């Protein structure tokens, strides 16, 4: 089973009379437990790629499968439900709700699902990410690194199959960035997630299983000599 699979997915935008090909026909897949980095200059189509996988926009052609289920053809409402269940998003900075404490960010998931709050799981997850002491702090009271760790906890809490991280280290200094990426790599392995991280920082790719480069809408796998296990 592939956690993420793209079959001949492409995306075109109309810009006036011109058609821009943001993503050229792409085949791509990620296995459970695999940590993939996508690097490339800004405007290369990295974000388009990630948002198509996340179901925030539909491909012009081709299909996206999440856990072998055709995802990209579902109606927006259904896609939102799948997104909520199967995908954990980690964004640059602001994906925490400013008026909820760290543990309330996780509880929100239960509130939306109308499920019971799993206190043990919250505690374990926050301890794992070393932010248990900050459980009752608001995002505004945390440092950038702490915020991203809280965001990772939030993304992992509902146990999604897929983690999509869009520049998760953009607002962090190098040591903090490395720390966050190490946590992502560890959680991917421990919890058998399929993780895609979009970044512009090539120094971080050494913690990933495979690295893809996006340029002008073309996704190409970078050869890696020191890594094994990638497709």
């Amino acid at each position, binding site marked *: 089973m592939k956690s993420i699979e793209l079959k001949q997915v492409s995306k075109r935008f109309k810009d006036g009379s011109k058609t821009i090909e943001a993503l050229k026909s792409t085949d791509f897949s990620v296995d459970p437990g695999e940590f993939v980095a996508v690097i490339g200059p800004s405007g290369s189509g990295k974000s388009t790629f990630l948002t198509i996988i996340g179901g925030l926009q539909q491909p012009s052609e081709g299909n996206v499968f999440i856990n072998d289920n055709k995802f990209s053809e579902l109606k927006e409402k259904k896609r*939102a439900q799948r997104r*909520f269940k199967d995908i954990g998003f980690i964004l640059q900075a602001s994906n925490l709700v400013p008026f909820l404490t760290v543990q309330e960010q996780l509880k929100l998931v239960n*509130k939306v699902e109308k499920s019971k709050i799993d206190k043990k799981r919250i505690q374990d997850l926050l301890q794992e990410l070393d932010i248990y002491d900050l459980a009752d702090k608001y995002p505004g009271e945390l440092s950038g690194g702490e915020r991203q760790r809280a965001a990772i906890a939030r993304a992992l809490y509902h146990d999604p199959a897929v983690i999509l991280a869009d520049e998760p280290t953009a607002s962090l200094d190098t040591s903090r960035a490395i720390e966050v990426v190490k946590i992502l790599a560890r959680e991917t392995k421990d919890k058998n997630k399929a993780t895609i991280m979009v970044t512009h920082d090539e120094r971080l790719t050494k913690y990933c299983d495979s690295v893809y480069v996006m340029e002008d809408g073309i996704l190409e796998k970078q050869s890696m000599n020191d890594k094994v296990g990638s497709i």
Partner: protein
Amino acid sequence: MFLAWKEIKFSKTRFALIIGIVLLVSYLVSFLTGLAYGLSQEYRMAIDKWDADSIVLTSESNQNLNMSMIDPSEQSNISADETARIGVASNIVRPEGSEDSDVNIDVSLFGIDPTEFLTPNIIEGELFSAENEVVADITLKEEEGIEIGDVLQLSGQDRTVEVSGFTDNARYSVAPVLYADIQTYQQIRFDSDESIEDFPVNAIVVRDSQSLDSLNIGNDELEAYPINDFISSLPGYNAQVLTFGLMIGFLVVIAALVVGIFIYVLTLQKTSMLGVMKAQGISTSYIAKSVLAQTFLLAVIGVMAGFGLTILTGAFLPAAVPYQNNYLFLVATSAALIIFALLGAIFSVRTVAKIDPLEAIE
């Protein structure tokens, strides 16, 4: 509710301001409702006290009690369970011996037969038992300091009446009522010392279990009117009720707009956060419900506080202010405020629905 309440707790000052505004509007609306009700009661209280079903007036009187003149003998022709004659005169009185025109008091004089059902309840003193004795509304004591046994000089006439007792809830056309027997009424109304049986009364009040249509009056020149129609046609009554009604209606709409705009601005400020939530797969309906829940909380807290403040104010108002609580009206206007505030928040729900999660990510 989770998000709604957490956000209120987090941004206390901001939401306290909104609640403050709802409170003030609700206070104003409730207070106006109390004043409107109190004032309308000043017009009709004495009529409500009759507990009557209809009133027989002359057809030509245009439902104006003063303009209707009926021969008292007509009473026997009316086929109702109970009937009672009444004569009404406006008058000005002042305590005897006082020359100061400042103490002039506007009153309505009701001439009634103490054997009939219009006889007022007595809360102090006793019913009139002789000519030129009157039972007065208790506000005459509370506001003007009139006591039992006081003699009142009638303006423009060389007559006096003596207060034998007090009743309550007896105000008609914003004036306290003096009850006297029909002879006294006729002498005052027609300024004559004779007591003549044919002197007319103004109306015959009817209590009847049957419908108005089956009431037989036995005279083409007379007509029976339902008591509520008669109250609506009291001079000034409808104009006053409509004026207050319009003011209250506008205030409710303004409150809805103010709350709606506040919530809308707050929602606009949160657009990117809400976009991220939608990207995470949290449904539009969950977010929309949370916006409505928040509006509901703000409105309920504000309206309840305004409600409480109104009742508190009502308890401390001097008797001269025609303020009266009517809990049914208070609850109705409060409910209207809450419902309209929710309607105002619907703009924001549309905004939430339109947020594109893609924009929040890119």
